[in-house]
């Protein structure tokens, strides 16, 4: 067991854990940040997507020892008024909601890189995030709405 300092949502957290513990376990079980969901545990579904230095990363695949001083942002780091969250509400995207935190984090990372993504770019960026309820058409609409809102403001 080692002691790690993690920079999460602009706060510093100190945790004691094994080097190989996945970040998802640290977030949920050690820090109580349960907004990030456990889906498959093998990086295949995208439910646990968070941002590490603004890039979309699967927290279930990221060992604690690989983080260093990187800046982590989880769904709890958003204020509820982010253009993507507002668009998500306007388009009434979620059904069961389980995958939505990961979907939103991937969408935000996409819009940070490409403020006006084409439908093909949206499809490519979101393809690794699965939704068993099949809310994909509303996800695409919400991303397009968020892009439009951001360009108007």
């Amino acid at each position, binding site marked *: 067991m080692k002691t790690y300092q993690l920079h999460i949502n602009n706060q510093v957290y100190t945790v004691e854990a094994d080097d190989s513990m996945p970040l998802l376990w640290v977030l949920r079980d050690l820090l109580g940040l349960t907004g990030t969901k456990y889906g498959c545990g093998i990086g295949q579904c995208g439910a646990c997507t968070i941002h590490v230095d603004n*890039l979309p990363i699967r927290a279930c695949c990221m060992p604690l020892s*690989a983080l260093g001083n990187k800046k982590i942002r989880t769904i709890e780091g958003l204020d509820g008024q982010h253009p993507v969250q507002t668009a998500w509400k306007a388009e009434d995207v979620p059904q069961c909601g389980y995958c939505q935190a990961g979907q939103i984090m991937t969408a935000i990372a996409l819009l940070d890189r490409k403020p006006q993504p084409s439908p093909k770019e949206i499809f490519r960026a979101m393809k690794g995030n699965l939704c068993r309820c099949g809310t994909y058409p509303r996800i695409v609409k919400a991303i397009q709405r968020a892009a439009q809102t951001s360009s108007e403001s």
Partner: protein
Amino acid sequence: MLKPIITGAACLLGLLFLDSACQNKSPISDQERDAGQEVYLAHCISCHGPEGDGNQGFYPSLAGRKIDSAYTRRAIRLITQGSGSDGGMRPIGLDPDELRDVINYIQNSWGNEAPALSSSQSAFSLKLNP
């Protein structure tokens, strides 16, 4: 008397510059690189890292590799079929364009260099590895 010599030297310098420019030119365009990077960000970055350097012994590095046809075949097989071992790489469902773009991105980033894979080569690979 000097004019032909100067003209000849200028031509030689021009040819050398052109040769050098051709050698430094990446086999893929910026647009192709961007398309491949998007696939990489969606499917590969969590394990192989933003710089392709893997993850401290947990996941292999893709950077600074000697790329030959065997490497490309293995990469395609790993993406389409996975490693086949418990805890190893799982297959990733990519269409032929995505497969081409991500292979070209990986094989022309982080010190790697390889000829660009075409759409038909990528589609053929998917037929072999459905």
